[in-house]
Structure formats: structure tokens, C-alpha cells
């Protein structure tokens, strides 16, 4: 769309202002408010998850008692649920492509699939949490427990919110309240969903795959 040619943030020239050309009066940046807001929110979320992941990373191998990641993680299991979440990104983007084509049946299909995959992931996480707790790892147990549960829990809450949004979209679409003109709603929620997915990509690597340094006892405690 020619009308959305983006003026540079800092070096736009007045002549480029669409309104003066009698062109579509888009926003100054050419991006809608909602999308810009979502992206700035995602930028903010980078710092949020960055802090959580960093906390986990910092405390790797510093727990003074077990269990440790090594003897509790079930990598094949987590790999599958990671894969499920990764594929939900695909279904999400297919949903967006569908509404962009005006294919509302496929939109609902893919949105439902995305929500379903997300639910499978959350179900997997619930199962994982329960089994960890059975194996004696809670938030209170050690640093590993604290940082693991808080990090993955935060992510899980984000996924859950995403599922709620997706289901709302399905419902709206089914009631005919999601016309093609509102394609952007799908896009914005898609952005959120993909973000949650990329965060998990990082978590999967940093938390699950990269092993903790050995030894949770190298650090003598001088507390008397």
C-alpha cells in the first residue's frame, strides 16, 4: 500500500505527510496505534522475561540442596511440548493468512487449532509441575525450584492469557463480529502469541537444554 510508506521516525520530511498529499490519513509512522502499542508492549516484555530468565541463569548450579535440573528434567517430554508450542505459531500465522484472504472458516479452524495446541502445552506444563512436586521440588526447595517455577509459571500465565484471547476471537468470529476489516485484531493477538512462543524458544534452550554447572556445594556458607 503506497499510502503506508513509512516515514523515518527521525528524518521524515513534512512533504511526506500523507495528509498534505491528500492521501490516506494514516498515522505518522504508518503503523496503527494498536500495533505500535502491542510492539512497544512486547519490547517491554523483553525486559520482563529477560529479568526472569537471567534470574534463572544466575542461580543455575547455586542451589545448596537437590533436586537439580539434571535429575528432574524429562527432556523428551519437554521437547514434545516445546514442539507443540512452536507449531502453534504456525497455525496462528495461518489463521492470520486466512482472514487476510477473507476465509473465515479457516480462520476459526486455525485459531481453534492454535488455542488447542496452546492448551496442550499448558496441560503439559501442569503435568510437569505436578510431577516435579511429587519428586520433591517446590518453589521452597531450593534456588532451582524457586527460579524454575517462577520463570515457567510466568510464561504459562502468558500462554493462558493468549489462549483466552484466541478463544474470544473464535467466538467473535463465529458470531460474525470479526469481519475482515478487523484483520488487525487477529494480527495483534498473533504478535502476542508469537512472542510467547519465542520466549519459550529461549527458555527451552537456556533452562532445559543447557545443563547447569555441576556442584551445588562449591559455595561455602559463612552464616553463623
Amino acid at each position, binding site marked *: 500500500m503506497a499510502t503506508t510508506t513509512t516515514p523515518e521516525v527521525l528524518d521524515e520530511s513534512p512533504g511526506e505527510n500523507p495528509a498534505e498529499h491528500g492521501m490516506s490519513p494514516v498515522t505518522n509512522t504508518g503503523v496503527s496505534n494498536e500495533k505500535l502499542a502491542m510492539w512497544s508492549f512486547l519490547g517491554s516484555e523483553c525486559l520482563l522475561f529477560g529479568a526472569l530468565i537471567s534470574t534463572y541463569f544466575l542461580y543455575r548450579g547455586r542451589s545448596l540442596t537437590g533436586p537439580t535440573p539434571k535429575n528432574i528434567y524429562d527432556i523428551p517430554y519437554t521437547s514434545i511440548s516445546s514442539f507443540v508450542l512452536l507449531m502453534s505459531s504456525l497455525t496462528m500465522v495461518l489463521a492470520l493468512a486466512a482472514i487476510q484472504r477473507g476465509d473465515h472458516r479457516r480462520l476459526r479452524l486455525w485459531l481453534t487449532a492454535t488455542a488447542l495446541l496452546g492448551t496442550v502445552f499448558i496441560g503439559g506444563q501442569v503435568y510437569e509441575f505436578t510431577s516435579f512436586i511429587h519428586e520433591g521440588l517446590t518453589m521452597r526447595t531450593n534456588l532451582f525450584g524457586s527460579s524454575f517455577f517462577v520463570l515457567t509459571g510466568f510464561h504459562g500465565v502468558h500462554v493462558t492469557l493468549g489462549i483466552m484471547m484466541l478463544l474470544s476471537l473464535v467466538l467473535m468470529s463465529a458470531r460474525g463480529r470479526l469481519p475482515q476489516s478487523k484483520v488487525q485484531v487477529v494480527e495483534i493477538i498473533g504478535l502476542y502469541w508469537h512472542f510467547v512462543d519465542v520466549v519459550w524458544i529461549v527458555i527451552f534452550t537456556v533452562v532445559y537444554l543447557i545443563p547447569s554447572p555441576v556442584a551445588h556445594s562449591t559455595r561455602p556458607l*559463612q552464616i*553463623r
Partner: protein
Amino acid sequence: MRNSGKLRWTLKGPLALGLVLLLGGCVKNASQDTLKAHGSIARLQNSLFIPVFWIAVGVFVLVGGLVGVCIVKFRARSEDEAPRQIHGHTKAEIAWTIMPAILLASIAIPTVKFVFDLNKFPKNAITVNVVGHRWWWQMDYTKPDDVNQTDFTTATEMHIPVKQQVIVTLTSVDVIHNFWVPELAGKLYAIPGRHNKLVIEADTPGTYYGQCAEYCGTSHSNMRLRVIADTPDQYAAWVTAQEAPAAQPVVSTSPDTTTTTPGVTAAPTEASLAATGANVFKSAGCAGCHAISGISDGVVGPNLTHFKSRSVFAGAIFQNDDNNLRLWLANPPAQKPGSVMPNLHLTSDQINQLIAYLDTLR
């Protein structure tokens, strides 16, 4: 014009006054004065601060002066003045970007050097492990030949030999504290789970005040300490005295007479009082928290082995005399808010006996 002159002085008057007062203020006899360095470390720190402080004053005089000139010179005289519209000046911008940068670079160099200087630690120095507690300082003197071994433990008041760098390693058992004896050295945190290292040194014999500088809870204000710089001889004598075991109270012949009939019997001798006090110490709960070598080994409160050798107690908020001790023992939290030492509801006789006993712990 007349008006603007007045205005300028109303603007600058308080500032000039402030500056004068600042100078006046430094002469005051404050006992934790950071500008009154009494040791090489504090002097090093001041040798950086004081010149930069005066540079800053100079810059301020420049800026304030320029503002003052503007107010006087460019004050509107009529409503219709048409000043020249200056939108900017590239050379000026470059100048006042680069000049401060050069100035700052020139103070950055000594700063970095001093940072590394402060991280040089003398070898074979006396090492004292200082542990922060809510709200008092514990000092573990290490053995001269092995810094991993504690030689003796004291609290609140530490001695150092004069003109000798002493390494203080800092940690804490609860929250973050901050060890600070301004006239000897800048502060450093005592953080639970970490060990920080600080050098202190005193030039002249004397008593130096210090206190915890990081907010650590209710009685943060009451977490003070003293560093006493001794001549080498005095210090050696002090160490010998501290290394000695606690004084043993003379065994009382009739320990319970005083407790059963308070105030009735003739005044017991100091010795028998003290001996009773030792028993009170063991039975009333003191021993659970306080260590006295050979008697108890509590670690919650200060080590009392040579309690009476210290001039202050309870986080250095009290002079170590019988009156203060009496008040303290009667109700510690009332004297020091939030005190971890509870009110043991001791009778006044028990208190007297305890004081008599503590008096023997020299």
C-alpha cells in the same frame, strides 16, 4: 536596573550564605567527619573528593554567574523589546560538549587509579572478620599466622594498632549492613553470603566513631561502633588480654541467700554477687545467646568474654557503666527498639548480680 540588582542579590544571597555556612560547617567538631581523615585510606579518598568538590564549586560559580548576568543584563525593560532570535550556535555547542568532557576525563583518570589503589591489600596484615548483626558488629580477630582461624571475638568496639593497615573482611548473618568509620575509611557493605574486604588505618591513637550506614531495620540508627587505635604496645597488651579466658567468678558459698531473701540479708560481697550473677547468666537464658569463653557459646548476641574491657555496649549506644547496664538488662527493647535481645523480666537483684558478674569480665 536598580530593581534587577536587588533581584540578583536576592537570588545569589542565599547561595553565597550557603557557601559560607558550608565552610563554617566544616570546622565544627563532628566526630564522624568524613573530611577529617585520620588514616591513609580516608586521606586518599579525600584527596580525590576535595579537589573535585572545588572544581564543582567553580563550575557552579560559572553557571550561577552566567545566570546572574542574564538576569541583570537581559531583563526586559519594555514590553516591546525585540531581541535577536538566536536559534543556536554550533561552535558553542561543540565547545560546551567537549570542555566538560575533557574536564571529566581528567578526573576520570585519578578516579580509576584510586579504585585500583583501594583494592590493594597488604600482605600479612592483621585481619579482622567483621560480621554484621541486627544491630551490632561482631569482630573476629584472626590468628596472626592463619587468617582462617579465629583468635578471639569481640563486639562493637575494635582495637587496631596505629599506623598499620588492618584488613577488615565483612559479612553479615541477616540483612545487609554497611561498615563505616568515616575518619579511617569509606564504607563497605556487609552482605550475607558474601565477603567484602576493606582496609582501615589510623595515624594517631584515639577513638574513632563509626556506624552502620545501610538501612538494616528498626534499630539501624543504633548500630554504631568504635575503633580504638592503640600504640603498638597497648595493642599487644589488649590482644593478650582478649586472648585470655574469661575471669572465673569465685564460687559463692551460699548462692541462694541473696535470691531467696532479697534485700534482707546484709549486702553480699562483690565476689559472691558476681558468682551468683554467673549462675543467673547460665540459668536465666543469657547463655543461650551470648558466649563467654569456658561458660557458654551462644552466637546470637555479642561475645561477652571480656565485656568490661569495652567502653560501650548495645551497638555503642551506651557507655558501659552500671547504670546503663541496669537500664538495659531491665528491658532491652525499650532501650533499643526492635532489639533481638528480649526482655527476660529479670528481678532487680538478678540484674545487680549480673552486673556484678559482668564487671568481672575484664
